[in-house]
């Protein structure tokens, strides 16, 4: 007795000469009627939406065109880009330091980094930004020098420079907490054998990180980091609460004056879309660079 059944032995299997010639038959593909129905319905909806965008006078595309590339808006776009750039650069620089503090063997460094990440992930960005903004009124001067000792140079925190640095500081500190976890996750994803092999070869410690660990960690860091940059880029609109002339703030100012809310919101939206597209394209090429040697 057997649980498996033998394959049926037909004439064809028994005698090669009588095997059927399948190549002469016509192949009929599977039909997907419901898929076609869904395509039709979706196409109608998309067409309706596009038609509305173009023909509905409420969008006021002429106003949009008037404002899209005015000096004020371009300047505001530039400030948004700067906020994103400095927020990302400083945020990730601090984030890398925090990540390696959390990965270090020192319990003190570990818990400082852990506390920082815990605190800055807990505080809403807008609360933090308002806090820094108001702190510039608390601390009118910033002193640089020996800790607790004499100061070497100092500058006033008031004025626009103060608001801008407060914004960058707030964005960067916020970003650092998330960046730290992303970098740490990336480093942990690198096989332990890699560090071991590098150590066995006597490769200096910093070089192990820079040449062996980070390039491999980048593969898992990059998609998450790109997400963070894009969300920070749109997050800069929160800075409008500090009366900094970035894109969203300027748009609000303009429609506050002329009452053309919808077309001006579209001006901001289209700029956000364009810049996010640029970032996504950059992400594609950077990821491709770091996938060297990968088969997947």
């Amino acid at each position: 007795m057997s649980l498996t059944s033998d394959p049926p032995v037909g004439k064809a299997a028994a005698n090669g000469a009588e095997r059927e010639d399948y190549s002469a038959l016509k192949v009929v593909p599977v039909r997907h009627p419901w898929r076609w129905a869904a395509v039709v319905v979706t196409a109608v909806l998309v067409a309706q939406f596009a038609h509305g965008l173009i023909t509905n006078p409420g969008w006021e595309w002429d106003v949009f065109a008037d404002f899209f590339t005015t000096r004020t808006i371009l300047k505001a776009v530039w400030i948004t880009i700067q906020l994103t750039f400095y927020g990302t650069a400083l945020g990730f620089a601090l984030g890398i330091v925090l990540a390696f503090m959390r990965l270090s063997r020192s319990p003190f460094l570990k818990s400082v980094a852990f506390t920082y990440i815990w605190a800055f992930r807990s505080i809403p960005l807008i609360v933090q930004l308002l806090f820094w903004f108001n702190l510039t009124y608390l601390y009118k001067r910033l002193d640089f020098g020996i800790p607790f000792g004499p100061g070497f140079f100092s500058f006033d925190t008031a004025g626009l420079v103060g608001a801008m640095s407060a914004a960058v500081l707030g964005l960067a500190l916020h970003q650092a907490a998330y960046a730290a976890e992303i970098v740490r996750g990336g480093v942990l994803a690198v096989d332990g054998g890699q560090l071991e092999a590098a150590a066995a070869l006597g490769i200096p410690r910093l070089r192990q990180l820079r040449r062996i660990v980070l390039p491999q960690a980048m593969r898992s860091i990059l998609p998450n980091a790109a997400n963070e940059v894009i969300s920070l880029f749109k997050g800069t609109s929160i800075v409008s609460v500090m009366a900094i002339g970035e894109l969203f703030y300027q748009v609000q100012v303009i429609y506050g004056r002329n009452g053309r809310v919808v077309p001006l919101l579209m001006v901001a939206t289209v700029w956000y879309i364009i810049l996010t597209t640029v970032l996504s394209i950059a992400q594609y090429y950077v990821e491709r660079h770091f996938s060297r040697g990968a088969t997947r």
Partner: protein
Amino acid sequence: MTAMVDIRSVHKSFGSLEVLRGIDLEVRSGEVAVVLGPSGSGKSTLLRAINHLEKVDSGWISVAGSLVGYRRQGDRLYELREREILKQRTRIGFVFQNFNLFPHLTVLENIVEAPVSALRRPRKEAVRAAEALLARVGLADKAAAYPRQLSGGQQQRVAIARALALEPELLLFDEPTSALDPELVGEVLDVIKDLAHQGTTMIVVTHEIGFAREVADTVVFMDDGRIVERGAPAEVLDAPRHERTKAFLSKVL
């Protein structure tokens, strides 16, 4: 003959698990020692301790006359800093079971990396040496390939070339063929045999009894953190004295 490796009453525990329970072993310059033993007997831990990838709890290990992990000054032993330990390791080549090649670097860059960054060799010179090593392991045409484009046997031969690039005085192999498909084992063993015939001092952990019989000067049998038996291949493999050695050999042969 001088001792290349001198291991004296080495103990090592992981938590409450004592993995090395007093190891004494001497490997002379030019000697090939093959370490056999069941899984979990502490073979890898011993190899890693020789390279200071694992710090021992007590006992001493010296390689080529210098203590591993310490510097002697008068009647004191100073623990070495990481930088000095890394320097020591450049004199010892280590070949891993899983190759551990750097997947984002080409074969040539894998080999050149350590001579350039650890020994500060000029890059040009290191590249020339790496090409010669690749030819020696029969992979001269693979310099520009990435590790994942190679078969397991080819990867392990690259890993051997990478270890040789530091011109080490001692080579350690931790089950170099255990991760390979059976038909690829031979090409890696051939490279190791070649090195053995050229007088390289090496300690090889393996389950390949035929290889041990052919190239070992000494066979060491480990069990449960101790060296149970050691001697010439003919003694240990063909006329084992201990029950545990007999039991192990009857399983792997």
